[in-house]
């Protein structure tokens, strides 16, 4: 177990190094010049040079990257190149927004996905076919379009939820819930569809196994067999899918954040990409990689707990 954890941490660190390096050289090699972004369209070459010197992008690329990475491993994320302040502050303000909607979406998707999938597998027939159609529709709906429709109907037309913006939980739990409800729905639909499909298939598969037949022969109630035995054995694949969707939700949050004017990490990544703000971009990517590694680790541990036959190695 210890060896496994150490391996995961080391591979995560290597991933952070590789990804941030790739992003840095892509952004600086092919992306916009942050000094030009700051100077505006009609700035003279002298003005651009002055800003380049001011923000330090006139130095060799390797020196710029080395400088950032050296500070990063000491926990100093540095400052934005495009005047957006300390990167740590930007992240501490934007991460809770994205995490709120991504975790919220995952929680809702797990509850609904397992509920719908189990129901479809247990009842089959017309209900199953109906749910299958819903799943296809859910998977086919573009998240951005859905988010815009939700904003138009529930926020603009009905006024039930705010059309844009985020309220922190500490400021007002109720307003926090209102501010994340529509973004969560926007992110959830496709995940619910994917999880429920996986749950349905897994439950049907496990239900046909010998041990289930034995349990039925022993006279155990169907409900007990389904919830205590079948679902526990069937949970592996859906949980893996859920973990993957959580990772996807972090990137999918870009579209939803744009639709609801939220200043989450998706929004910050987009702005940093457009403006060539490499320190912000690399720091967010590094932290996202760390988060993804942790989520995968947690998923493995959860799977092992659910099914002792799965050994972490």
């Amino acid at each position, binding site marked *: 177990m210890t060896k496994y954890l150490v391996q995961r941490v080391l591979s995560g660190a290597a991933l952070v190094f590789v990804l941030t390096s790739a992003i840095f050289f892509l952004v600086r*090699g*092919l*992306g*916009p*010049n942050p000094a*030009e972004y*700051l*100077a*505006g*369209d*009609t*700035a*003279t*070459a002298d*003005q*651009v040079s*002055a*800003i380049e010197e*001011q923000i330090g992008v006139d130095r060799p690329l390797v020196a710029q990257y080395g400088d950032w990475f050296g500070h990063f491993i000491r926990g100093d994320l540095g400052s934005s190149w*495009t*005047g*957006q*302040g300390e990167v740590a*502050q*930007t992240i501490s*303000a*934007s991460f809770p927004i994205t995490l709120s909607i991504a975790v919220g979406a995952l929680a809702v998707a797990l509850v609904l996905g397992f509920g719908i999938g189990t129901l479809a597998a247990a009842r089959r027939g017309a209900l199953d076919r109906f749910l299958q159609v819903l799943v296809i529709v859910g998977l086919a709906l573009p998240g951005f379009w859905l988010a*815009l429709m939700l*904003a*138009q109907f529930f*926020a*603009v037309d009905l*006024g*039930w*939820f*705010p*059309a*844009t*913006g985020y309220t922190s939980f500490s400021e007002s739990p*109720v*307003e926090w*819930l*209102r501010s994340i*409800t529509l973004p969560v729905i926007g992110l959830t639909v496709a995940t619910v569809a994917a999880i429920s499909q996986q749950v349905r298939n897994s439950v049907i598969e496990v239900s046909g196994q010998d041990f289930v037949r034995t349990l039925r022969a022993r006279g155990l109630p169907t409900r007990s067999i389904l919830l205590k035995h079948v679902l526990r054995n069937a949970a592996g694949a859906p949980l893996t899918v859920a973990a993957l969707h959580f990772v996807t939700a972090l990137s999918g949050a870009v579209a939803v954040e*744009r*639709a*609801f*004017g939220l*200043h989450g990490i998706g*929004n910050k990544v987009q*702005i940093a990409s457009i403006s*060539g703000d490499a320190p912000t971009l690399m720091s967010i990517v590094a932290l996202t990689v760390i988060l993804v590694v942790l989520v995968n680790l947690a998923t493995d541990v959860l799977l092992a707990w659910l099914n002792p036959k799965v050994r972490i190695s």
Partner: protein
Amino acid sequence: MKTIMRQLVAATAILIGLAMVVACGGGQSGASADRIRIAVPQAPPTLDPADMTEGQMLFFAQTLFDSLVVVGPDGQIQPNIATEWSYNADHTSLTMTLRDDATFSDGTAVDAAAVVKALDHNREGTGTAHQQLLSVSDVSAVDPSTVRIDLKSGDPSLLYSLGTYGGFLVAPASVDAGTADTAPIGSGPYVLDTAQTVNGSSYVFSRHAGYWNQAAFPYDSVELKVIDTPDATLNALKSGQIDAMYGTEEASQDAKAAGLTVNVGSPALWNGYIIADRSGRQVPALGDERIRQAINYAIDRKGIVEQFYPESGIPTTQVFNPKSPAWDESLNAQYPYDPDKARALVKESGLGDVTVTIASFPRLLDRLQPIIEQELDAVGITVVWNSVAPSDYRSGLLGAPMYPMSMSSNLSPWTDIQNLLLPTATMNGMHSQTPELDRLLSAVQSATDDAELQSAYRAVNTYLVDQAWFVPIVAIKTMFFTADQVAVTMHDGQVVPDLRDIVPAG
């Protein structure tokens, strides 16, 4: 039965919970009479007026800083911190008298010494102010209430510059402390309320208590909300989360349908192409004025405007602002859509099969490309598109022989001349210069009265249109969407109105 009951109870509890969340929400509070909430597309990279760039940063600048003069909505220069001013005989020195009751938000006086320091700071910056004050050779205090600005050469746009970024005044204390970018002490009607501001998403400004002209700014506070997508911004306006936003052609129908006010101003932008290789160094054909003219004849401006800019576009052949003294309505008739004439000019040039290379840049008039290619092909000019990466804006795009541009057009044509025509101009990548144009520009700089200036500007404009150095297609009117409770006076030559021109309706 028991199970069904339990499920029903659970479902009811969830519904009640949701209903409570919806009901408990504050709803969308309407705009209060004492706060104006305006959407801006991006957070300010800096709050230092010396480093700010034009565009919607203007709201940030105008909340925090007063300017020496005010450029009225119609372009008239009005007194502000400077109450009177006069030029010397050859317009190379401007003397301004300052009002004596203006203070910075730290209580210190806005006197001549402070103005000198602020203008010198603006000259040394990296933003629009630096460019606007390039002609200034020295700023000095004649006495505590008089400032003299000496120029290297005549600058017909100086007063306009002193009404915007060039003339925004930050306190000497901020300059000395090096804090002008994050916590500037300003001279304007409001101060940044750091307790209510969420950096990067919402900036709240409260009244500067000692401000001399509070009546000109009716709102007790200003909130600038950063929303970077047009759809989300419009939804925020429709649902009452904001009171005003920059408008676009694409969103105007939707805004009207939602009952919002669509304020339409005069054009402040033009879209088209810049032919930079006027000497034919890279693309020999572009060095021939007949080919440049043929390109202008080949473009169906009216058709493009009807298709893409039906609400906001005016077909144009001129790079200057329609409200500026350089504008000459008759020049718009110079290049009607006339493929036959274009073909004849290509033939007359004797260049045979003509090929021109045009740069293509992400999101910059890319929707016009198929039309431009088709229309030029129809008159015997083959277009080769050269894709320029976003990282290569300056050398790749602005250094290209011909490239698309969405360009501001200003009330003072000299600003456009500085941007487009001077040998050092950013949009004059190949440093074109002709004796004839030098002579015309010199006449502009030496003009000492309005009639002479207008005549000189029009001569420059006529020369440019005759020579076909540019292919302007459409002049674009500005739009600003507001909620019922807000009234706006649009500002000529600006993409957004002045903060002082956004007031409570009625």
